């Protein structure tokens, strides 16, 4: 198991933007807002930033793939912020967690000293996220699109099988939706702040891909988030208490690996930021990480088990459901805020370690341990 990255790097600054459904501001202005906030929060100036990692890709059949319009590239950020000292930059498509891995590794080998990670997501008006526009499908799509399956429909298939095998119900799934919605009430940036959800609302919401309904899906918004990372030595000289990355694993089964890499046991973890692009992914992550038994996550998430104050508070900022879709940036940011002790009303008391996990069933996932001590 790779322990070479243990406590080598830390998150030292975080940045937010508004999260909105419709806007007359450019996507770039959201990205710049979050990036500048993260740099300032870290106690740094733009000239200090010498590394950059991003995941620019706009997903969905409606994506235009235009830099500055629905995607924000390294070039866009570097030129907009006038970062004069960049010596390492990398854009890779995927969830934001891939950028965190890249930034950690670049810092560890000395490719840069202060790395900025930005994720901006654009919600096009009048275009369905998953709409398919092409009359022909090639590559992996040749075996799915001719059957009317959009890529995300696969997640509904996995949930269907899980419910069949475990006996979990939609009422069980609502417990997860409700816990995250409650957490969103305590997050000033959350889209759903101020709006509760009841079981009746949930069961009445329309199907998207059955058994996934509208409120099982993440919230498509325009917004951005950013974090700044540096080496553990440099982190000590900056104003925020560092959120050390004590371990990470990038594999199909990161469950054991992240604990071995960090040397931190499951009983030493006080919170988990688990990716919730679709709400049942929280079940998958709880089981993948061994935080509960196989097929038992739906029981674990009953009775406030994952709520603040519960057995293991999960996705304490409201997640992609409650805060809004940022493909993992929100989870990374919240993990750092919790470890720094800056999560305000959402703060988990006496928190030393927080797991952050991004990804889903069919791809290698990324699991990180964020820790207060180094």
């Amino acid at each position: 198991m790779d322990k070479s990255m243990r406590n080598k790097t830390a998150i030292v600054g975080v940045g937010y933007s508004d999260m909105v459904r419709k806007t007359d501001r450019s996507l770039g202005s959201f990205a710049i807002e979050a990036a500048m906030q993260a740099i300032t929060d870290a106690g740094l100036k733009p000239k200090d930033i010498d590394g950059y990692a991003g995941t620019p890709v706009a997903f969905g059949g409606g994506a235009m793939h235009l830099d500055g319009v629905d995607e924000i590239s390294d070039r866009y950020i570097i030129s907009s912020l006038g970062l004069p000292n960049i010596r390492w930059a990398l854009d890779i498509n995927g969830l934001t967690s891939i950028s965190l891995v890249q930034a950690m590794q670049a810092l560890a080998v000395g490719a840069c000293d202060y790395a900025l990670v930005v994720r901006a997501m654009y919600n096009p008006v009048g275009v369905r996220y998953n709409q398919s526009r092409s009359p022909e499908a090639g590559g992996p799509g040749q075996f799915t699109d001719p059957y009317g399956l959009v890529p995300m429909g696969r997640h509904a298939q996995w949930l269907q099988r899980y419910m069949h095998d475990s006996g979990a119900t939609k009422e069980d799934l609502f417990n997860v939706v409700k816990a995250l919605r409650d957490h969103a009430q305590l997050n000033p940036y959350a889209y759903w702040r101020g709006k509760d959800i009841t079981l009746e609302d949930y069961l009445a919401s329309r199907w998207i891909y059955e058994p996934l309904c509208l409120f099982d899906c993440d919230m498509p918004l325009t917004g951005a988030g950013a974090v700044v990372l540096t080496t553990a030595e440099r982190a000590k000289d900056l104003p925020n208490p560092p959120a050390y990355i004590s371990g990470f694993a990038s594999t199909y089964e990161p469950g054991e690996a992240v604990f071995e890499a960090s040397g931190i046991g499951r009983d030493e973890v006080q919170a988990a930021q688990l990716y919730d692009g679709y709400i049942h992914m929280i079940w998958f992550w709880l089981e993948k990480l061994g935080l509960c038994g196989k097929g038992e996550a739906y029981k674990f998430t009953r009775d406030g088990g994952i709520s603040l104050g519960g057995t293991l508070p999960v996705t304490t900022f409201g997640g992609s459901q409650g805060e809004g879709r940022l493909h993992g940036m929100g989870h990374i940011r919240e993990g750092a805020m919790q470890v720094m002790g800056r999560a305000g009303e959402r703060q988990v008391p006496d928190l030393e370690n927080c797991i952050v996990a991004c990804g889903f069933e069919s791809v290698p996932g990324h699991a990180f341990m964020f820790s207060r001590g180094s």
Partner: protein
Amino acid sequence: MADSTKVIPHADLETTPYWEAAREHKLKLPKCSQDGTFVFPPRPICPKCHSDKLEWTELSGRGAVYTFTIMHDKMVAGFDPPYVVAQVELEEQAGLRLQSNILECPVPDVYIGMPVEVTFEDRSEEISVPQFRPRSS
């Protein structure tokens, strides 16, 4: 009946034999001649023993619904919701699963474990796609 409004597959260098077989209403996949593994999606080597001696081999076309979703949104041209997209596990090999609609079956009647068999849907003169429908046993 040809339905040209639905998405049609674009074959490539690794998948052309699959779609050529489908046009003849046969379900074929590359099979490793060393250890007998069927490889899907089609690839140049066997992922288990790494042999490149693969032969396109016809399958029985029998399987069972492993899982499914009911699509309720109008997201793909030519498909009117609600419709089922299922993963069908073929009886030749555990984990060998194809996506398919379930034809000749009302949407609410589809269930996990349902026995199904292959049939073919002609999308044009040149293109037919494998589909599955219920079988009696």
